[in-house]
C-alpha cells in the first residue's frame, strides 16, 4: 500500500506545483482575480465588474470572485445587481456561508433590514471567513433599530476580540475600530482606541482603503478637518473614484466653509448615483440655499434606494418642517421613530438645519428633544446650548454646553464657545428697558454713551417703518476681539463678518476690534437690528438675500452715507455678467462663485429693495415680509405682492441699473488689456488718461500720480474728470479727498468743504475725511457743521481723547449741552492722565447745562485730586454763588 500512497502524494504535489506555473488555468484564474481586485481597489469599476463576472461564471464556487463582483456593482450603485450576484453564489453553493455577510450588507443598504439581519446571522452560524464582520454588521443593525443596549454589548465584545491577541486581518481590525467608535459615545477616550485599530488595519493591508475612509470620517466627526482631508486624499490618490471618499471631501469642505462642496458631492454621485449619504448631503446643502423643493427631490431619491434610511428620512422631515408642511413633517418623523425609537440624530439634524435657516428657537427645541431621547447625544447638548445662547438664555445655554463638552471634548466649537463664555465675567451689562448691552468692562463706560441711544433710535424708527415692535429685551453683545465674535457665528453660513443677529440676540465687533476705518459700528448695529425686526415679522422665515438687502437699505435710510456703496468692481462685474439674476441672489450669500460675489450681493440686494420700493411703494417691502412669513417662495412672493414674475422683475431691475449707473458704466473699461505680471507704468497710465478722457480708472490713477508728484493744478483736472465720470465713488483714492486737499492748499476752504461733505455723505468709514471736514468747517465758522462731522466720526472710531474734547467744545459753543456733557463723559471714560482736568471740564458742561447738582459734585471730584486747581476752584465758587442766588 505504501508505494501507492506515496505515488498518490507525489501526484498531488506535482499537480499543486504545476498549478502555480504561469499559463496553468488555476494560475490564470488567480491572476485574473488579483487583477479584478486591483481594478476594484483603484476605481476601475467597469473593468472589475467584467473580470469578476467572467470569473464568477467560470468559477461559480469562487467566493472571492462572487464577493468582488457584488462589491464592484455596489461601488457604482447597482445594488440590485450586487444583491443578485451574492444570491447567485449562495444558491449555487448551498454548503457555503461565505457570501451571506456580503448579501446582508447589500440588503441593509437597500432598506431590507429583516432580511439583512437574517443574512448576517447565517454568516455567523456558518462561521464564514468574514463572520466577525457579520457580527459587527448585526450589531450596527440592532443599534440602528434602537436596540441600543444590546448593540453596545456586542460592540464591547470586540474589545475582547482584539485583546485576545489573535492575529486579525485588516478587515477584522477595521471592524474592531468601528465597534469601538460606537462605544466612544459612552466613553470618549475610546475614540483614540478606534483610531489605533484603524491604523493597525492600514498597516496590516495598506491596499485596504476602507479603514482609511473610516479614519477620515472619524476625524471629521471629531472636528479635525486637516487630518480628515489627508485621509480622504490618501484614498483618492489610490482610487479617485471612491464615492465615499469624495463625499468625505465634500463634507470636509462644508465643515471648513470652503466653496466647492456641492460639486464634490456631485462627483461622488457620478460614481455612485445611489449613494444615499451623498443624496442626503446634497439635500442639506440645498436646504441651506433655501431651495426646499430641490432638497426634497434629493431626499426622495435617497429613499427610493433605501426607504429605511434614517438619515434620509430625517432630512426629509427637516425639509417638510421648513416648508411648513406639518403633515409631511409628522409623517417623516413618525417613520424614523418607528424604525428606531432612540434615533436622537433625527432631532440633532432638525436642530442643525433649523439653525442654518435661522430658526434658533426651533433649533433649541429640537435639540432638547434629542437629549431627552438620548442622554449621550453630546451633539444634542451642544446644539441646545448654542441655540439657547443665540436666543438669550445664557445661563441655561452655558450649562448644556458644559454637559456636551464633558461628553465630547473633541468638539472645538463647544470648547471655543465655553472659553468665550468664561470671558463674560469681564463684561458689563448695561440694562435698559428694551436693550441689554454687554460690553467689555474696559470700554463699557465709553460705548454705553453711544450704543444705547443709537439702538433706541433704530428701534423707534424701524417700529414706525414696519408697524411692528420686536420682542424685547434685545441683547447686544459687543466684542473687543474679532476672534471672540467669530465664535458666536460658528457653523453659520453666508454671514457677514461684522455682526450677526439671531433675533433676540445681536453680536458684533466693537470698534476696537478693527483698524480705524475698518467698519462703521453705527451702521452695523442698525443693520443687525433691522434683521431682528425682519426675523420677528416673518418668524425667521425670510430668505437671506431679502433680509440682507433690506438691512443694507435700512442703513442707507438711517444716515446719509451709511450702507454699502457702488464700486468700480461692482460695475465691472455687472458689465461682465457676473452679477446674479434676482431669482438667484440667494446663491450669492450661500455659495458665492467668487470671493467678491458676497459683497456684491449685499449691494445688489439693497438696490433691488430700493427698486421695489420705487416701483411698488414702501408698503410693498412689508407685504413681502408677510408673504414670506406665510411660507411663500420667492417666485410666489413676487407674483402675489408685486404682481410680476421674478425673472421679468430681474430684467427690469437690470434696466434700472443701466439707467441709474449709465454714466459710470460707460466709464468702466473691463476689457482693457493690462500688462502681464506687473503694474502699469506711469507712462502707460498717462497714455490711457490722455487717449481716453472717458475712462474713470485712468483719469483717477493719473490724477493720483500727478498729485504724488506735487503737480496739484494738473492733478485737479484729471481728478475733476474722474469725479464727473463716477460721482458716487467715494472709496479708496476717491477724487473727493484729493480735490479737498488741493482746494485747501489753494486757499479755497469752502470748495474743500464741499468735496469733503460729498465724500463723507457717501463713505461711512472715512474717519480722516470727517476730521478734516470738521477742521475746515470750524475755520469757516460753521461750528454746527464741524460738530456734525465729528459726530459721524464717532461711529467709526470713538477712542481718541482729544477728539471728544474737541467735540465737547463745539457742542458747548453751539449750546448743545447734553451732547457736550456726553462728550466730556467720553473723555473721562478713556482714563486721561489729567483726570482732574477732565472732571473739571465735565463740571463746566453740567454748569452750562444748568445742572448745579451734578456740576458741584463733579467739580468736587476734580478738586479732590488737585485742590490747588484754580480754574476748578473758581467754578466751585460760581456754582455756590448760583445756588445761593448771588454772583460770588
Amino acid at each position, binding site marked *: 500500500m505504501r508505494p501507492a500512497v506515496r505515488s498518490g502524494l507525489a501526484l498531488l504535489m506535482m499537480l499543486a506545483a504545476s498549478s502555480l506555473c504561469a499559463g496553468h488555468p488555476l494560475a490564470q484564474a488567480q491572476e485574473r482575480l488579483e487583477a479584478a481586485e486591483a481594478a476594484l481597489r483603484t476605481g476601475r469599476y467597469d473593468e472589475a465588474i467584467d473580470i469578476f463576472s467572467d470569473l464568477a461564471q467560470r468559477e461559480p464556487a469562487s467566493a472571492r470572485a462572487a464577493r468582488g463582483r457584488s462589491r464592484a456593482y455596489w461601488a457604482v450603485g447597482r445594488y440590485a445587481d450586487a444583491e443578485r450576484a451574492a444570491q447567485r453564489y449562495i444558491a449555487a453553493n448551498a454548503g457555503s456561508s461565505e457570501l451571506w455577510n456580503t448579501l446582508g450588507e447589500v440588503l441593509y443598504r437597500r432598506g431590507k433590514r429583516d432580511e439583512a439581519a437574517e443574512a448576517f446571522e447565517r454568516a455567523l452560524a456558518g462561521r464564514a471567513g468574514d463572520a466577525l464582520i457579520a457580527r459587527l454588521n448585526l450589531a450596527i443593525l440592532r443599534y440602528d433599530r434602537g436596540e441600543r443596549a444590546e448593540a453596545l454589548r456586542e460592540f464591547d465584545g470586540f474589545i475582547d476580540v482584539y485583546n485576545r491577541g489573535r492575529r486579525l486581518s485588516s478587515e477584522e481590525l477595521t471592524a474592531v475600530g468601528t465597534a469601538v467608535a460606537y462605544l466612544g459615545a459612552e466613553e470618549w477616550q475610546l475614540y483614540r482606541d478606534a483610531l489605533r485599530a484603524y491604523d493597525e488595519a492600514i498597516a496590516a493591508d495598506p491596499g485596504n482603503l476602507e479603514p482609511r475612509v473610516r479614519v477620515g470620517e472619524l476625524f471629521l466627526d471629531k472636528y479635525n478637518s486637516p487630518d480628515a482631508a489627508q485621509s480622504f486624499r490618501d484614498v483618492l490618490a489610490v482610487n479617485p473614484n471612491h464615492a465615499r471618499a469624495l463625499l468625505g471631501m465634500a463634507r470636509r469642505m462644508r465643515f471648513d466653509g470652503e466653496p466647492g462642496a456641492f460639486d464634490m458631492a456631485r462627483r461622488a454621485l457620478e460614481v455612485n448615483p445611489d449613494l444615499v449619504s451623498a443624496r442626503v448631503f446634497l439635500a442639506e446643502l440645498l436646504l441651506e440655499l433655501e431651495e426646499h423643493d430641490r432638497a426634497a427631490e434629493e431626499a426622495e431619491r435617497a429613499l427610493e434606494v433605501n426607504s429605511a434610511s434614517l438619515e434620509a428620512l430625517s432630512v426629509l422631515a427637516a425639509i417638510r418642517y421648513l416648508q411648513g408642511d406639518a403633515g409631511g413633517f409628522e409623517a417623516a418623523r413618525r417613520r424614523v421613530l418607528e424604525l428606531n425609537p432612540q434615533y436622537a440624530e433625527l432631532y440633532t439634524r432638525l436642530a442643525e438645519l433649523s439653525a442654518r435657516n435661522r430658526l434658533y428657537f426651533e433649533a433649541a427645541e429640537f435639540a432638547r428633544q434629542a437629549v431627552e431621547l438620548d442622554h449621550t447625544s453630546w451633539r444634542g447638548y451642544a446644539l441646545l446650548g448654542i441655540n439657547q445662547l443665540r436666543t438669550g438664555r445664557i445661563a441655561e445655554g452655558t450649562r448644556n454646553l458644559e454637559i456636551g463638552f464633558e461628553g465630547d471634548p473633541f468638539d472645538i466649537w463647544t470648547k471655543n464657545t465655553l472659553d468665550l463664555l468664561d470671558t463674560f465675567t469681564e463684561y458689563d451689562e448695561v440694562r435698559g428697558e428694551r436693550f441689554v448691552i454687554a460690553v467689555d468692562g474696559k470700554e463699557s463706560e465709553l460705548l454705553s454713551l453711544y450704543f444705547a441711544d443709537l439702538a433706541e433710535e433704530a428701534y423707534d424708527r424701524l417700529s414706525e417703518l414696519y408697524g411692528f415692535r420686536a420682542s424685547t429685551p434685545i441683547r447686544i453683545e459687543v466684542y473687543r476681539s474679532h476672534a471672540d465674535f467669530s465664535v458666536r457665528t460658528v457653523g453659520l453660513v453666508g454671514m457677514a463678518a461684522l455682526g450677526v443677529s439671531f433675533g433676540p440676540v445681536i453680536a458684533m465687533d466693537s470698534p476696537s476690534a478693527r*483698524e480705524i476705518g475698518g467698519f462703521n459700528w453705527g451702521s452695523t448695529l442698525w443693520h443687525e437690528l433691522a434683521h431682528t425686526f425682519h426675523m420677528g415679522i416673518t418668524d425667521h422665515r425670510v430668505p437671506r438675500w431679502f433680509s440682507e438687502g433690506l438691512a443694507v437699505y435700512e442703513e442707507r435710510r438711517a444716515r446719509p452715507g451709511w450702507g454699502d456703496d457702488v464700486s468700480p468692481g461692482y460695475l465691472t462685474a455687472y458689465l461682465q455678467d457676473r452679477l446674479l439674476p434676482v431669482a438667484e441672489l440667494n446663491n450669492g450669500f450661500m455659495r458665492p462663485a467668487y470671493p467678491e460675489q458676497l459683497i456684491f450681493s449685499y449691494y445688489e440686494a439693497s438696490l433691488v429693495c430700493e427698486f421695489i420700493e420705487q416701483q411698488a411703494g414702501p408698503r410693498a417691502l412689508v407685504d413681502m415680509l408677510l408673504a414670506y412669513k406665510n411660507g411663500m417662495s420667492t417666485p410666489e412672493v413676487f407674483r402675489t405682492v408685486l404682481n410680476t414674475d421674478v425673472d421679468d422683475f430681474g430684467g427690469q431691475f437690470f434696466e434700472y441699473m443701466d439707467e441709474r449707473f449709465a454714466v459710470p458704466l460707460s466709464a468702466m473699461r473691463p476689457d482693457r488689456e493690462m500688462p502681464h505680471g506687473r503694474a502699469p507704468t506711469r507712462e502707460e497710465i498717462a497714455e490711457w488718461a490722455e487717449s481716453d478722457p472717458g475712462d474713470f480708472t485712468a483719469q483717477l490713477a493719473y490724477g493720483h500720480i500727478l498729485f504724488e508728484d506735487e503737480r496739484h493744478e494738473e492733478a485737479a483736472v484729471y481728478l475733476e474728470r474722474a469725479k464727473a465720470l463716477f460721482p458716487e465713488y467715494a472709496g479708496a483714492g476717491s477724487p473727493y479727498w484729493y480735490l479737498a486737499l488741493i482746494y485747501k492748499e489753494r486757499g479755497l476752504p469752502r470748495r474743500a468743504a464741499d468735496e469733503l461733505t460729498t465724500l463723507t455723505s457717501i463713505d461711512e468709514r472715512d474717519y480722516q475725511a470727517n476730521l478734516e471736514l470738521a477742521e475746515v468747517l470750524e475755520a469757516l465758522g460753521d461750528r454746527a457743521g464741524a460738530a456734525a462731522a465729528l459726530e459721524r466720526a464717532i461711529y467709526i472710531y470713538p477712542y481718541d481723547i482729544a477728539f471728544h474734547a474737541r467735540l465737547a467744545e463745539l457742542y458747548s459753543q453751539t449750546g448743545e449741552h447734553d451732547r457736550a456733557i456726553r462728550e466730556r463723559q467720553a473723555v473721562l471714560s478713556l482714563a486721561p492722565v*489729567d483726570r482732574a482736568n477732565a472732571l473739571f471740564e465735565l463740571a463746566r458742561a453740567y454748569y452750562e447745562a444748568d445742572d448745579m447738582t451734578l456740576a458741584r459734585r463733579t467739580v468736587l471730584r476734580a478738586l479732590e485730586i488737585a485742590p490747588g486747581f484754580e480754574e476748578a476752584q473758581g467754578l466751585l465758587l460760581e456754582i455756590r454763588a448760583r445756588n445761593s442766588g448771588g454772583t460770588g
Partner: protein
Amino acid sequence: MRTLVALAVAVSLVAAPAAAQQSHLVVVSGLSGEARYADAFHEWAVTLISAAQERWGVPESNIAFLAERTERDPERIDARSTRENIETTLETLAVRAGAEDHVFIVLIGHGSTSDGESKFNLPGPDMTATDFARLLDAFPTQTICFVNAASASGEFVPALSGGRRAIITATKTRLERNETVFAAFFVEAYAGDGADVDKDQRVSVLEAFSYASREVARAYEDDGKLLTEHALLDDDGDGEGTEEPDPQSTSDGRLAMTLFLAGPGEPVLAAETSSDPRLAALYGEKRDLEQQIAELRRQKDVLDPEAYDQRLEELLVELALVTREIREIEEAQQ
C-alpha cells in the same frame, strides 16, 4: 580736535548766577540707524528743549544738545553725540553747576546689551551704564534726573541709583529690546497739556513719568499691540525701579515729585513765601488748608460719604477764597 570740541561745548554753557538754584538740561540723541529714527529722535529732542526754554524758562545757556549729526541743525546742536563729547559735557557741567542745582540728563535713541551690560548706542563707541555712573559721581551734591528713553535700558537703574537721584528708564530690563516710544510721551509731558495732574502749573518729574507710562500703554493698546516696554522710576536709591511710583504707597516717587524743569529764580520746590504780612498769612492759611484736605482724603475710606463730601467742600471753598485773595493781592503788587 578733542580740545577744540571741548572748548566749543564749554562756550555754550555759560556760567549762571551762583545764588539761584537752577536747572540744567543735557539732551543726548544717539545713533539712529535709519532716517525715520533720526527724524523722530531729533523731533523729540528739539521739542523737549523748546519746552524747557520757552515754557519752563530754562535758559539756553543751561541747555546742551548733543546729536548724531551736527549738520542737521547746527543752530541747536552743540556737538556730535560721541562718547568723548558726552564725557566732556558732563565733566564741564559738574564743575559749573551750583551745589544745589538740578541736572537733567535725557538720552534719546537706541539701546542694546552686550556681555550682560546695557549700552546706549552712539556714533562711535557706545557708553554703558557703568560709564554714565562714573560721570554722575562728579555730581556729589546736585540732584540728578537721569532719563534713558532707549530700548534695553532697564539695567541703568541699579547702576546709576543713588541719593538725590531720580533714574528713569524706558524698559524694565535689558531684554526689552524693541524700539521704544517712551521718549515721545515723556517729551509731550513737558511740551503739552495733560501731565500737570495736581494743577500746580508745573510738571514734576513724577508727573512726566506717570504721563509717559500711561500714554505708552495707551498707544500700544490703540494699535492692538502687546506692550513691550515697561518704564521704571527709581528715586529712593535702592537700585530698584517702580513701574507705578506713588509717594503715598511706594518708596519711589517722593524725590521725583519735587523735581521740576525750571528757570533760575523759579520756585523749584513748592514754597510760597512773602515779606508782605498779609500774603504771608494767606500763604500760611493756604498751606494749612491743603494739609487739612490731604488729611481728610486719607480718611476717605472710613468716613460717611456725605459727611466726607460736605467737609471736603467746606475746605475747598475756603481754599478757593484764600487763593482768590492771594491772586488779587499778587496782581495788585505787580
